[in-house]
């Protein structure tokens, strides 16, 4: 840890991140905490992110909890988490109420259809990035597992929890024996 921020500084850093986070927050976390404030080094950022991706739940809330706790304990974790979640909950509740009222207007419905098509593209971008990093290490093993989980979930043969408890252990066992 390069500098140790105060609880107040943690709160305002995550408040700023969440208000800027259009289309994904992790990029803004990197820019704010590593590039601008230098609270984390590149290596600390990468290691923390890998922990947060491994843990269940939103990567970004896990990141807020882990970073807040390492700097300032429970108070730091709470400050980061509240700053991250509360402002967008207020904004999105307003948007939700508005959606109920104006989704029937033809032009609004049209605009939303355009935005939905664009948002589906955003998920493809995420997928391509994930597949690129997957293909870097032993694609002959990882890509077939990935294809299998895609197929069983999309076809409705297995639900996500079932796919996780059947394919997960197989995939973990392969990773275990490969590295021995």
């Amino acid at each position, binding site marked *: 840890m390069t500098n140790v921020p105060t609880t107040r500084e943690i709160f305002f850093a995550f408040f700023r991140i969440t208000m800027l986070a259009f289309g994904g*927050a992790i990029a803004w976390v990197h820019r704010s905490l590593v590039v601008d404030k230098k609270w984390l080094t590149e290596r600390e950022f990468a290691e923390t992110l890998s922990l947060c991706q491994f843990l269940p739940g939103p990567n970004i*809330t896990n990141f807020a909890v882990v970073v807040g706790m390492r700097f300032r304990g429970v108070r730091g974790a709470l400050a980061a988490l509240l700053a991250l979640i509360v402002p967008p909950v207020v904004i999105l509740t307003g948007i939700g109420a508005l959606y109920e009222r104006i989704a029937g207007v033809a032009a609004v419905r049209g605009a939303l259809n355009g935005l939905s098509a664009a948002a589906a593209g*955003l998920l493809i971008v995420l997928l391509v990035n994930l597949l690129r990093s997957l293909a870097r290490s032993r694609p002959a093993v990882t890509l077939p597992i990935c294809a299998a989980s895609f197929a069983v979930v999309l076809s409705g043969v297995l639900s996500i929890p079932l796919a996780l408890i059947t394919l997960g252990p197989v995939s973990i066992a392969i990773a275990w024996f490969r590295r021995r």
Partner: protein
Amino acid sequence: MHASHAFWAAIYALFTRVSGLALISFGGVNTVLPALHHQAVNEQHWMTDRDFANLFALASVSPGPNFMVLTLIGYKAAGVAGALVATFALCIPTSLLAFAVVKVWDRFRTAHWRVAIQDGLVPVTVGFVAAAAALLVNASDKSIAAYAITAAVAVVGTVTRFNPLWVFAGAAVVGAFGFV
């Protein structure tokens, strides 16, 4: 009485389904998007396929992390209380877990079993993200123009350095004029 019963049933379903899925969302919330879609559209009948795609799009273009689509799903299911319950069911159990795991994780950073679990889960969860992308394309893209917008965002986001969110503005305008 009947409306009130439906309200509490929705709140209960939101809390149990969302917190359950959150705790198995290894790799982030996008990995359980197909299961959320299934619950919201087919099981609980809170919304149509089209609504789901629209709410995902609204969350993508609003400030805050993208997982805030849960706030909008909660609002659609049970108003303001639903929005709060869905958001907190997603964030609180997983944050508590992150909180508990940080210290153990730091101690076992290089342990063989830990590396194997992480390496094994990644390809399975990337398959879930692929299924989520396929579902959203299916829910959003009902015309040639919609496919073109999805493809435009995917290409801009993967092969150029431009922020694909700029395409969203164009997509909303094209949609508002009824072309999507």
